[in-house]
């Protein structure tokens, strides 16, 4: 009787999860979506506790309390600029949880496990463990604990593939000889090592894609666990998460005009690339904030192009101040958001929302690009490669083919930048040398604060 009730409650959970994703499609209903998903998880946990009696409630309560103690401050206190790090960390936690449950299932039932279950369990553990270390490295890179540069050395791909190959070979051995329990930790070690190697080789600007791929892996491993336990709720929730990560990764890599394989093994921005195209005789025109204020006061329309630099210098609030002043002086203000600006999908939107920018002003690349030719002023804050016209014009450039924001077509471009250093790709931005570009050197936050002061004077 209880067993049947639990199955029905699981159905309720599935419905709530699907509605949650449906409601996440627009801002208006998105909060309802979050509540639906929360409800779904609560229903599922309640149903499970009803059906399975747990003797060690002390451990259960202890684990839940630890989870709440760690989780609450992260969620409530974390600055919005650190959201990509938190996401990487939550992928690490989720995938490790799945991997550990897989291991627990293995030890519980061996040798009474059929070959199919054992195969799925092994695959799930490999995926879970590699996602764990991969996400930890992504976290460390995003947090700045280790360099964001890709670790590149000769034979990198061979080493990575051999590591994964060893893990898979050990898994096969384990499946054929389930009593050899000692193989499992060794297999786990190789999977952990592969995750480490994989993400060490990926640079900071590719993080949006990598985070989405890790998201997908975490979901797929949860679904695999559902197969072993014959738990349909787990299969649905896992595959929803898996497909979500997959779609996001696809959108991200398309926005960079690259394939998954290229993102994972391409190591863009490696020092080995000989793409220094310094053309002699080109000059950069450096300006002051007073010059920018004058131009802004004579403009009718403004497009702001934010990038990772805005997140680094926490400049989103002062960006909003500049926009407010411009708006009060009659300018039409928009923000142009490149899909891979920042370090995770939708990063810029969250930061600007935090600064209370109304979301109607946030424009996607495809829609805003046709507006640049009619725009008087574009201000680039901390974006670089995504504005480089070489992606359109120079077939020899590594950026060629990547969809970019056509900032160069605006009548005047103000480019705020700390130094002349090239962007992540290591390619110089041709935009700097265009006659309609005004370079303003300095930290984004400081420059914009000065600009606000200059605008208030004028």
């Amino acid at each position, binding site marked *: 009787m209880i067993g049947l009730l639990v199955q029905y409650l699981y159905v309720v959970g599935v419905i709530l999860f699907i509605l949650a994703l449906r409601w*996440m499609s627009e801002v208006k209903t998105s909060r309802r979506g*979050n509540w639906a998903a929360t409800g779904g998880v609560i229903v599922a946990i309640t149903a499970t506790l009803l059906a399975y009696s747990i003797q060690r409630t002390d451990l259960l309560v*202890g684990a839940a309390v630890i*989870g709440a103690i*760690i*989780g609450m401050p992260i969620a409530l206190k974390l600055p919005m600029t650190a*959201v990509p790090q*938190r996401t990487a960390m939550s992928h690490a936690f989720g995938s490790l949880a799945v991997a550990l449950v897989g291991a627990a299932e293995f030890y519980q039932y061996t040798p009474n496990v059929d070959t199919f279950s054992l195969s799925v369990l092994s695959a799930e553990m490999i995926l879970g463990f590699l996602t764990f270390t991969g996400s930890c490295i992504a976290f460390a890179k995003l947090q700045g604990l280790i360099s964001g540069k890709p670790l590149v050395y000769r034979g990198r791909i061979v080493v990575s593939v051999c590591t994964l190959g060893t893990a898979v070979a050990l898994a096969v051995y384990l499946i054929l000889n389930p009593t050899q329990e000692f193989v499992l930790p060794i297999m786990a070690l190789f999977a952990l090592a592969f995750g480490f190697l994989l993400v060490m080789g990926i640079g900071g600007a590719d993080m949006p894609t990598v985070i989405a791929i890790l998201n997908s892996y975490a979901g797929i491993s949860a679904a695999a666990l559902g197969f072993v336990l014959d738990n349909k709720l787990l299969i649905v929730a896992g595959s929803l998460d898996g497909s979500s990560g997959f779609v996001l990764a696809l959108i991200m890599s398309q926005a960079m005009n690259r394939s998954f394989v290229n993102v994972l093994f391409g190591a863009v921005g490696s020092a080995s690339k000989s793409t220094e195209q310094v053309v002699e005789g080109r000059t950069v025109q450096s300006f002051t904030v007073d010059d920018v204020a004058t131009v802004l006061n004579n403009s009718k329309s403004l497009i702001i192009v934010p990038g990772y630099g805005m997140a680094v210098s926490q400049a989103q609030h002062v960006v909003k101040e500049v926009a407010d002043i411009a708006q009060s002086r009659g300018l039409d203000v928009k923000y142009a958001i490149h899909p891979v600006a920042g370090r995770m999908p939708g990063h810029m939107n969250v930061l600007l929302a935090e600064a209370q920018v109304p979301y109607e002003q946030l424009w996607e690349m495809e829609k805003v690009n046709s507006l640049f030719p009619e725009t008087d002023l574009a201000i680039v804050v901390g974006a670089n490669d995504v504005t480089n016209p070489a992606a359109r014009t120079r077939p020899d450039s590594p950026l060629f083919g990547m969809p970019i924001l056509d900032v160069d077509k605006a009548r005047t471009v103000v480019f705020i930048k700390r130094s002349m250093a090239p962007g992540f790709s290591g390619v110089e931005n041709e935009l700097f040398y265009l006659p309609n570009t005004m370079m303003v050197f300095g930290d984004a936050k400081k420059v914009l604060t000065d600009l606000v002061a200059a605008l208030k004077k004028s």
Partner: protein
Amino acid sequence: MLAVNQNDLVVNLLIFLMATFLGTELIRHVSRLLHTPLMALTNAISSISIVAGLIVMSETSSDFIMILATIAIALASTNIVSGFLITERILRMFRRRKETK
């Protein structure tokens, strides 16, 4: 005994495929504005693997397996708590123009 019944497997595969197709279609229609909170949300949803941890806990008498399950439950509940709370916090920041004035 952990063995997969072939009939269950077929049904589960069907569920997996349908959920994947449905997920792909649903996510495709999510506004780009919301990709960050979406990721926080789907991550919290996938922490439903806590259910698997609970089942293992109820089945075992071995201390070692119990420890594995406890750690897994702690990790998953961290994700549930922080995932839903941060999604709510992010979503509350998205405002319309008229509300900001």
